[in-house]
């Protein structure tokens, strides 16, 4: 793939991220998020990180998007009207300063190596040898899911108690 196309994809990924955050309609924001994930999927494929590219597309582009759609539908708030100029300008200033420092640090470090030699085999071998890694991973996922689902039930029980009292 031509380098120009890859750079165009990089710029499009940034623009899609900005669109996702600045669009007033939440459903369009989600579409922006999907677009960003698609552009990054192409970038990861060009870096030979095929496995991760597909995992990211399935989990971020599919699963997370479905979660966002369900929550937006449940909350019935289709528009984001809470725009605060003062807060946005201060945030933009802080982010610009941090980004400036970070980009300066990266360019000053002299990294100019060309890339594209990562292999999936090494990573999968490491994942298989280090069983502890995925055990910790499973524990985190189970814990978080329990907390999330539990919080919904607690709220439901409180509501039922209030109704019974009334």
């Amino acid at each position, binding site marked *: 793939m031509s380098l120009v196309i890859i750079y165009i994809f990089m710029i499009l990924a940034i623009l899609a991220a900005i669109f*996702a955050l600045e669009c007033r309609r939440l459903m369009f924001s989600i579409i922006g998020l999907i677009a960003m994930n698609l552009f990054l999927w192409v970038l990861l494929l060009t870096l030979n990180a095929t496995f991760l590219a597909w995992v990211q597309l399935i989990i971020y582009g599919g699963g997370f998007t479905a979660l966002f759609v369900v929550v937006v539908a449940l909350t019935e708030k289709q528009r984001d009207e*809470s725009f605060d100029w003062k807060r946005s300008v201060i945030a933009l200033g802080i982010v610009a300063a941090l980004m400036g420092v970070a980009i300066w640090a990266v360019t000053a470090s002299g990294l100019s190596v060309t890339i594209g030699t990562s292999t999936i085999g090494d990573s999968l071998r490491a994942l298989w040898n280090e069983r502890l890694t995925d055990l910790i991973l499973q524990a985190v996922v189970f814990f978080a899911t329990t907390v999330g689902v539990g919080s919904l039930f607690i709220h439901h029980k409180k509501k039922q108690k209030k109704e019974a009292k009334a």
Partner: protein
Amino acid sequence: MIEQLHLLILGIVLFGVGLYALLGKRNIIKILMGIEIMTIAINLVFISLGANSTNEMFTQFAQIFPLISIAIGAAVLAVGLAIAINNYRHAHSLDTDEMATLKR
């Protein structure tokens, strides 16, 4: 071949966009989107750094760490969205300034 530097700058810019959402937005769904974008940016930086590293251990974990990060990101998002729904049921708003009412 893409220059590693350009990918790192892409990662920094995406992280900045996510951080802007975290600091400047009041809608909880937008904030969660920002967190997601920041996670993706970190994953991209890991992949770009590990792709041509001579350190074997780092090369192995360059793709493993983003996998762990994605799983933890999923957990964070699940909890965050559960809180968002609870807050909406409680205060009929997705505004983070209204979230103090969850304590009551």
